[in-house]
């Protein structure tokens, strides 16, 4: 009971700063998701293309990104390439998260595209469609629908992974929690509160995703 009260006190003390930080967390996540989806689509198409060169580039990207820790990628973009370009913490973090996500999303799209029955391509070919027309009009719309559950999962992972950019001092939610805990000496309560913020965000997102999936299903079958 005592704990509950102190947790609530910490919540009341921190919410002005935490809500602002939540906004930054959401902004980083949004940029990362848009970038990740675009990269994911490009690399998925490269991976299933008939060009060996494009396939190799895509495989290289996916292998490197999936094979190294996200935190290393964040540090690399922020501190590692300063000779080339100096990025703000926000952009270094958001872009690192986007590139990181791109590799996973590429695999999601590739799996979904290759999972579409080959009869669909044959039917569209037999009607005179080119490969590109068939991909754009027939294969991809179906693959996208199948990608939504794993994409939603990936989006949730991204939201939580965005906490790692605290390491380059972006004032997002987790960085704020660290700062608070160091000042108020109430680590247990502070991390409980920040954990609850993430949990609520994920639950809202899961709910929205569910609504969207239901809408798709009602429409089409």
């Amino acid at each position: 009971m005592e704990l509950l009260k102190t947790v609530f006190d910490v919540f009341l003390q921190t919410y002005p700063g935490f809500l602002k930080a939540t906004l930054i967390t959401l902004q980083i996540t949004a940029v990362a998701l848009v970038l990740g989806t675009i990269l994911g689509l490009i690399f998925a198409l490269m991976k299933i293309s008939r060009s060996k060169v494009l396939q190799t580039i895509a495989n290289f990207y996916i292998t490197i990104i999936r094979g190294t820790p996200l935190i290393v990628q964040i540090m690399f973009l922020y501190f590692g390439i300063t000779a080339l370009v100096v990025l703000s913490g926000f952009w270094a973090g958001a872009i690192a998260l986007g590139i990181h996500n791109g590799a996973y999303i590429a695999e999601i799209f590739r799996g979904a595209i290759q999972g579409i029955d080959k009869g669909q391509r044959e039917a569209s070919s037999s009607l005179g469609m080119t490969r590109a027309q068939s991909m754009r009009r027939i294969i991809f719309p179906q693959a996208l629908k199948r990608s939504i559950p794993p994409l939603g999962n990936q989006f949730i992972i991204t939201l939580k992974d965005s906490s790692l950019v605290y390491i380059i001092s972006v004032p997002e939610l987790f960085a704020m929690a660290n700062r608070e805990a160091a000042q108020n000496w109430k680590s247990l309560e502070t991390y409980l509160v920040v954990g609850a913020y993430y949990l609520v965000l994920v639950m809202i997102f899961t709910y929205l995703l569910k609504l969207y999936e239901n809408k798709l299903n009602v429409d089409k079958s």
Partner: protein
Amino acid sequence: MLKGTNIHKSFGDLEVLKGIDLEVAPSEVVVLVGVSGSGKSTLLRCFNFLEYINEGTIEIDGHVVDPKKDKLSKIRAEVGMVFQHFNLFPHMTVLENVIEAPMIVKNMKKADAVALAEQLLEKVGLSDKANVYPSKLSGGQKQRVAIARSLAMEPKVLLFDEPTSALDPELVGEVLAVMQQLAQEGMTMVVVTHEMKFAKEVADRVIMLDEGVIIESADPVTFFENPSHDRTKQFIQLVD
């Protein structure tokens, strides 16, 4: 209209077609029969360039197709194909399935494509299903939509790859009736099927494939009553 000369096709070491010569005249209905593995479906798929032949030539409407130089999508647009498993586009309504290719491939205006589609859906008896998704249709209805979809490209030849094999027995008739009507209207058709009744009543010519070669090619009466080859006799007994 459609002419294959010395067609050879192998999958790896397995030679499926061993020198097929087949010419289909305009408005002719040719039925291909044979046991499974005889190469009849492969032959059909070669005519539509879903498979590339290893040797020989394919001529469509007087034009010898060169898969390296010709745009195959253009060629395929002239040769329609109806599949065993329908392969309708599940994310589109019946109407959208039919208007898709004319609009995308032929750049037909939507209003014209819809008018054409409505006319074709009426022909196959599915006007009332235009705005339904394929998942709501029976197998027979799906196959009739697939036929309408192929017809919307106004192909010179229509190929049927076991169009009724995936259907419940009571639904076979409605699909065959549509095909029979097409035949009467003068559509050039090559049909792979196990429906011998259809072969007897609708075909102008029945062709028996066995191990990648044509062993019998005759009008249906001769084919069924007086076949020349022992394998054909066995086959006819088997399916009767």
